[in-house]
């Protein structure tokens, strides 16, 4: 049976596309890590913890939300978030900060905050 040219072309295109997609997939993964690991590698990660009470404030010069995140083990780091304070931030049972640790500034620059609150409701609670 003769394999059609179109099939070869199609196959090559699909393999290429899948390779590209997989590559993008791997580089876009943000693993869950501890504070210590986040500080060691400056790559996109997510860190879970709670806000240290009273540590959050809006920085007037940079217009960023700054707070201290403490993970279960007790390790702390300062998180800077360029966005509105999520609606249920004040009473979150858990906060997941997604972003990169910036060594020279010694802060974790979060691009996204996932806020878990103690409600049972399984719908949207807050946007980005």
């Amino acid at each position, binding site marked *: 049976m003769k394999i059609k040219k179109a099939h070869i072309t199609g196959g090559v295109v699909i393999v290429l596309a899948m390779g590209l997609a997989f590559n*993008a*997939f791997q580089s876009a993964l943000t693993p869950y890590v501890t504070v210590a690991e986040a500080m060691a590698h400056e790559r996109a990660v997510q860190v879970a913890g709670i806000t240290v009470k009273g540590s959050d404030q809006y920085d007037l010069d940079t217009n960023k939300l700054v707070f201290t995140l403490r993970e279960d083990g007790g390790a702390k780091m300062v998180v800077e978030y360029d966005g509105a304070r999520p609606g249920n931030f004040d009473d979150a049972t858990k906060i997941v900060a997604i972003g990169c640790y910036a060594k020279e500034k010694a802060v974790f620059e979060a691009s996204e905050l996932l806020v878990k609150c103690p*409600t049972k409701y399984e719908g949207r609670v807050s946007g980005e």
Partner: protein
Amino acid sequence: MNNLGGLCMWLGLLALIISSLGYLFLLLKPDPVGIKTTARLGFTAFTGCVTVASISLMLAILGNDFVFSYVARYSSRDLPLIYRISSFWAGQEGSFLLWVFLGAWLGLFLIYQSGSQEPRVMLVYNLSNLFLMILLIKQSPFHMLAVAPADGNGMNMLLQDPWMAIHPPIVFLGYAAYAIPFAFAINALWSRDYDGWIKPGLPWAIFAYVTLGAGIIIGGFWSYKVLGWGGYWGWDPVENASLLPWLAGTALVHGMILQDTKKQLRKTNFFLVTFAFVLVIYCTFLTRSGILADFSVHSFTDLGITGLLVLFMGVFIALAVWLLAMRWKDLPAPAKTEIAYFSREFGFIAAIALLCMSCLVTGLGTSAPLITRMMAKASKVSTDFYVQTNLPLAVLILLLLSFVPLMAFGRNQPSRLIKKLPWAVAGAVIALAVTGWHGMFDTRSLLIAIPAGGATGLNLALATGLARRHFSLASGALVHLGVGLMFLGIVASSMYDRSEKQRFFQGATKPAFGYAITLSAPQVVGHGKGERLELPLDIEKGKARFLARPDIYVERKKGGQLQRFIHPYIKRGIFSDLYISPVDYDSGRKKAPSNQIVIKKGQTIHRDPYAITFNGFDIRGMGQNTLTGISVGARLTVAYKTEASVDLTPVLNMGQGQTNAADHREKLPGQEAAFVSLVQINADEKTVTLVYEGSSVNTEKAQNAEKPKASVILDVSIKPGMTLLWVGTFLMLFGGVVGIIRRRPR
């Protein structure tokens, strides 16, 4: 009967089983008298039971019958009527019930429509309803509490929006509809009538495309209007969960149209229809099983239905794959195997491939936590992943839409294209000119904007031309015109939006994007369970003046937690929206200087007008029984201005429940109401924490200062092209509705 609903669920399950057995008999023994009627009656009884159950849940909600755990969790006495109704589907169990309810009523149409295909179609359709019924019996919305609470938890403030009230029913109507083309397809394989499922199944596939699409768009519209982050699509797992079956279903519609007209893609379509249907279950599994709980802003709870959902998927995949394998050799090859590159067929196939690829990469990203969990630590992908992978696919789809709709099936002469292609070119040039005029030559946006302009131009010309012949002929062109407009809107709103955060002080006017914005007196208004901080803004631009009233709503939940909700203000315009979202509020009242003093043994601290020296501990209650606890005093020497210093010993009682420092405070000399008390000791470091009450030089100054000035940080943004986006999405759905009418069964 006080739990009619729960009883109805069991009766409904029974009726559904009777109906299924009836249809099964009908297949084994051709047409025994009365069996068909029994099967149909069974299904009708199932519909009746589910309807009665739904009504009883609705009545329980409307009647504040909080003995039902579901009603207590999602409704409350103070909810307005419309949101009381929508709390029916605010939780998982209720939304599953809604799904079954809608599915049951669609099934009645299906019996009427399916004709000779009825037994097998209904058997497969019953099977999918059977699974939902089992889910519902396992996780029933009719679970009753031992004691009815006085009031329910109520509904999340964000969901109290008309758009969110209608969003779930529309999504679930789409979900329910995806089972119908699948049922027709299984019947086709089973009965070896490989093309017979297309005609009756296609309107349903388009119906599912329209309803699920409408649900997605309403969700986006709500997100933009209510959430205040200024976007309409965040690639959150819950959003993706409705997008995935929709993309697969859109590919399916194309495949079915091609099979209908050219008898092509018979095998592919069986894959597509299975893919779309199984994705509905898979996405339900992703969002309802708790697997993504750590990766989404939506808190999913595991109701213990994960295993059932996996079984549900497995059964349908096995059924479809097994039947397809059995019939693979038997499936007739298409009449013409060679497909010309330059043909309408090729465009269809390319569109299907691109839509499937988009579905696969989006699905890969959404499933990332699941996949990575098997290998190492569970991770999610950043939202950039979705943009990066879907961007080239979108560009290719838009390019196809800029010329393929012109071509006929079979071989095409290039000359045919010349007639109408100028429209596409004109559209592309206009899009380029507009982008260029704004001075934004960003590669990404040009890559999308130019072909989107082409697709818009071409399909606008086609739609007007076709509509003149017969309106229903324009269905496809309308959908594609909508796609072009939507992508123009996406480019404009996401790449050319301008935004700035500024602090606005009360009474002071500040400019932002040509608007002069003044914050007048903020007001706190009680509302529902919380307080609404209204931020009235006077906005002026040229001669136009208007009042904007974004607000920050704070609600105290059970257990005392506070939850903040931001309500943005949106001034919609034809070309661009003004979007104002409050970020943070400051009442302007200065915090009193800290009245706590930490002092080490032997140290002297100056706190105007006092100088306080800590000499050492005074341990009194040592050795006493544990009931009274231990009393510790701090021996202090306090000097007031130039007067002679006095010795004071404030005391702290420990080990005796709560300590109340105010009971043990010591009067300070000089001032009228000045006290010092001991609140904490640290024996290891030999320090004590004192609380000082009374006026100091600092607070006197603060009192003389001007009145506090409230201020708010506002995120002010200009979002162009939102009108294009909404008009485009509307046309995408409207074209689909026209398509259903055009392909309705006759």
